[in-house]
């Protein structure tokens, strides 16, 4: 294609100017890649932090709501009091677990009994949130066994695992007995099998783990469970999977995003800010290309005029300038993507004194395909105006100048 040869020759005719223009495009693209990788990395890190030790979806029975009942006696209380003595529970939980196992997005399942209780050690009393689960799958949702700092994670029939802050508050250590008093008013003496430390105060101070078998009589649930915790291969799809599970089971399905609405809002705001920065980067790149090509078209008016005079079509002239835009866009975007990836990869290696990453950057999430296509297409569009004006040039007027 001869127009391509002419476009290439025009770009090489002033290598310094072309290099400067391509550098500008590359820098803009690099900024885009950096912002995208940083926002992606930050979102991934926050999501990982939130979901690493918690379920992606929690299935529970629907909340019971007191209903207004018709009453023949207007003076009597019109509200039906729902019994709160009988716990909300999932009776037919084995069929729900079977359904979950067949779902391709589900990676792990943990049927649990959750309830409130007090731990009593002599005069010391502390409220705890009890999570009872299958001891064989204790690490399914949270990696408890790796957080044990004394004792071990073997729950057994009378074992309990408590957090380090709770152990400290009650003066407990692994191997010691402690009395558990549930919200059903049932007491049982248990042995502290292990003390864990997650680093999260809410967990280390308020959570205790039991086996399902130990918890059943304590919470008066001989067969049922209170909730099923679910992990997914892709945490990002939790909302959609939760909606499906709610439809399929009738249970209340809460995704991790719903539980952490403020985090999701923050991520959205961060993403929107990033989009604005990305848009401005691209716009500045495209304005640079358009102005450079406009200057080029103006500088070459005489040449374009003589081409038009000896019968070269306007579409050929337009193609020469559009192809210059295409070449600048492609080369600039290619170099920008490569240098952006190199920069992000280098930043990824930087660490703080404590060994953690200095920047939560994800080089693989630089949006390379998107920025390459956007820059290339944008460069072509940016060249349309100078190309059009060159193509419409009156040959006589251009030659006489």
């Amino acid at each position: 294609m001869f127009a391509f040869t002419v476009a290439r020759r025009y770009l090489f005719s002033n290598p310094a100017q072309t290099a400067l223009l391509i550098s500008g495009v590359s820098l803009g693209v690099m900024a885009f890649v950096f912002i995208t990788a940083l926002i992606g990395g930050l979102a991934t890190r926050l999501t990982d932090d939130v979901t690493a030790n918690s379920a992606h979806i929690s299935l529970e029975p629907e909340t019971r709501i007191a209903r207004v009942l018709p009453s023949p006696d207007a003076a009597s209380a019109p509200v039906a009091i729902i019994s709160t003595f009988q716990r909300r529970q999932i009776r037919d939980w084995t069929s729900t677990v079977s359904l979950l196992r067949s779902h391709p997005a589900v990676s792990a399942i943990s049927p649990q009994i959750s309830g409130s209780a007090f731990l009593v050690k002599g005069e010391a009393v502390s409220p705890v949130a009890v999570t009872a689960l299958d001891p064989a799958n204790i690490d399914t949702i949270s990696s408890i066994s790796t957080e044990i700092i004394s004792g071990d994670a073997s729950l057994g029939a009378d074992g309990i695992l408590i957090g380090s802050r709770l152990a400290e508050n009650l003066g407990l250590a692994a191997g010691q007995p402690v009395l558990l008093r549930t919200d059903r008013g049932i007491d049982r003496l248990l042995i502290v099998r292990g003390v864990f430390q997650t680093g999260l105060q809410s967990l280390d101070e308020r959570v205790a783990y039991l086996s399902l078998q130990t918890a059943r009589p304590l919470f008066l649930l001989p067969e049922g469970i209170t909730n099923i915790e679910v992990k997914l291969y892709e945490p990002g799809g939790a909302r959609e999977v939760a909606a499906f599970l709610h439809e399929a089971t009738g249970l209340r399905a809460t995704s991790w995003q719903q539980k952490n609405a403020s985090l999701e809002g923050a991520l959205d705001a961060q993403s929107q800010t990033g989009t604005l920065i990305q848009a401005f980067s691209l716009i500045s790149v495209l304005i640079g290309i358009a102005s450079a090509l406009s200057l080029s078209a103006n500088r070459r008016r005489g040449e374009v005029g003589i081409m038009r005079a000896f019968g070269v079509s306007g579409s050929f002239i337009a193609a020469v300038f559009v192809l210059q835009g295409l070449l600048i866009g492609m080369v600039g975007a290619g170099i920008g993507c490569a240098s952006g990836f190199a920069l992000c990869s280098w930043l990824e290696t930087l660490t703080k004194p404590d060994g953690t990453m200095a920047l939560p950057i994800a080089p693989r999430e630089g949006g390379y395909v998107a920025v390459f296509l956007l820059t290339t297409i944008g460069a072509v569009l940016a060249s349309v105006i100078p190309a059009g004006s060159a193509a419409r040039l009156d040959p006589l007027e251009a030659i006489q100048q």
Partner: protein
Amino acid sequence: MSTLLEARGIGMTFRNGDELTEVLKGVDLTLEHGELAALLGASGSGKSTLLSIVGLLLKPTAGTLSIAGQRVEGLPDLERAQFRNRRLGFIFQFHHLLPDFTATENVAFPAAAPAGAISPAMRRRARDLLARVGLADRMDFPATRLSGGQKQRVAIARALMNKPELILADEPTGSLDRVAAGQVLDLMREVNREDKATFLICTHDEQVAARCTRRVTLKDGSVESA
């Protein structure tokens, strides 16, 4: 000889706001195949405007124009461009070579642009033309490294590339020194003689006109003598 160009009652009026300027007033001009005609006239006589109309770079406001038997004054822009490319050659006072291309590429350009590439045949013809205009040793030189006279000779070769029937030259020696101007004029005379190419040379230089086979003089927008 047969008629190549026939212009009848060519008029050209330019509008500048409310002001109308009549540059050409019913010009009649006929050129036969193989003529080497000089178009003379004082500055402002309308000779460049007439040349632009004959070269299909400007549409007349009145009159008819036929080239090689085809009415061309009302052709749409695309067809005018195609007609210029295939049947007309242009030589301007300033060569307007493409500085980023070699002498050979400049000569081949009018054929290569519509075809999409410089074919081997085009390259051969371009080099033959350059050899003919005395630039055999400058074929692969970038246009920027040629002297003024050499550039104008490349422009002549470029005008001949598509074997045009009519070559229009606007002050072709105007920017050259006496020696270079003489060489360029000799070259045009040689092409006219050997190829039977028809030339219409717009000039105000009596010495150029004296070496042409015919003189057409414009005065105040009309043909004074032909």
